[in-house]
């Protein structure tokens, strides 16, 4: 009989590193990442799962971490923005493309957009403009009007 209670032990892989933590049942995965793991690159922009600023990768799929309980991450492998590019200064080709094409302004939506784009390019290495725009439907940006975000992803695909 599985244990039902207010606190749960979860074992998960975070950016390639196996970790074990105790989490409250009520805690959302995004709060676990930000407040317990102290990884502040994942952001919160709304309270209804609409904006996608909290997008991370779970078992290779983009997911809104404000729409999952931390307890549901047990046994999963999660990737956050901190896993992109090597070392404290390295930018991967996708991040570099965003820098070259001014694909960001305030940077608050950028982590969620990058992780969504990373999984998109993994599934579809050469997406059309419309396929990119449809893939970004769940990532709200209030600064760029999306045009340069789409161009940055197109440039990354061309690399």
């Amino acid at each position, binding site marked *: *009989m*599985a*244990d*039902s*209670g*207010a606190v*749960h032990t979860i074992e998960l892989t975070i950016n390639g590193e196996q970790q074990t933590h105790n989490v409250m*049942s*009520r805690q*959302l995965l995004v709060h676990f990442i930000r407040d317990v793991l102290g990884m502040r690159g994942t952001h*919160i922009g709304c*309270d*209804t*799962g609409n904006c*996608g600023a909290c*997008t991370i990768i*779970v078992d290779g*799929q*983009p*997911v*809104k971490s*404000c*729409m*999952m*309980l931390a*307890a*549901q991450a*047990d046994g999963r492998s999660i990737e956050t923005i901190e896993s992109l590019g090597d070392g404290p200064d390295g930018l991967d080709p996708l991040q570099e493309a965003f820098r070259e094409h001014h694909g960001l302004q305030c940077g608050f939506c950028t982590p969620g957009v990058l992780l*969504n784009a990373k999984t*998109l390019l993994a599934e579809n290495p050469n997406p059309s403009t419309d396929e990119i725009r*449809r*893939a970004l*439907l*769940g990532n709200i940006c209030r600064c760029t009007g999306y045009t340069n975000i789409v161009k940055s992803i197109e440039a990354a695909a061309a690399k």
Partner: protein
Amino acid sequence: MLLAATDYVRPDSLQEAVELLASSANARPLAGGQSLLNVLKHRAASVDLLVDISRLEELRSIESGGDGSATIGAGVTYAELERSDALRASHPVVAEVASVTVDRQVRNRGTLGGNICFADPASNFPPLVVALGATMNITGPGGDRTLAAEDFFSGAHRTALEPGELLRSVTLPALGGAGTGYRTLPLARESWALARAAALVRGNGTIEDIRVVLGCVAGTPVRATAMEDKLRGEQPTPEAIADASAAAGEGLEPPSDTHATGDYRRDMACVMAKRAVLEATGGANG
């Protein structure tokens, strides 16, 4: 954004899930959580025990019946529906609707059962499963039972599930050459619906059987029986369909909200019904 205190459990079997659900008056199944968690975050409602059924293999299969029917586990995600070759072959409209449900992130977590049991009048699947004449396979403390989709929805966010019961799967009867249509008037590009209609039409030359189901106009999906009666036995000409669709709105008292009045939703129900039937009968799009 902060849930009230709650307990969580992830049972290893469907049977265990049913027992856990029956163990507390305020236990609820948690599948993808793409709707339920929003309710809990805003404390519009709270739950004492969340029973996580998202990993139960018994709920995650898509089986094609030899006769062209299909049985889809309640735990199958929209992304899995979208990618299922079997479903694209037997019921392409279901895969198509899944592919435009909310966005990529939600499609990786949200499930068919969650969409149906959340039973929001603006949810994508309730009108479709009623139009397709689906059967709801339910399991619970008292064993298994089935219900026609039409009898499954009993109110806004309310279904016929008794305490402790769980939707196990949805069986879609074979289309058998029947035409399907599904039309939505979204608030913005591919966003949630102001009006929606799903249609199933059987018959070549004349309409032998027709089901037109409206979403967004009441607490539950609504059969546009007046429209169906006008078209049954008729030639599916655009004029006939247009005339009949005017009857789709009769007797409806749709809700008003910040985006549209009830009157507009009634008018748009007729337009979506027309377009859905035109699509189901292979006619031009309105």
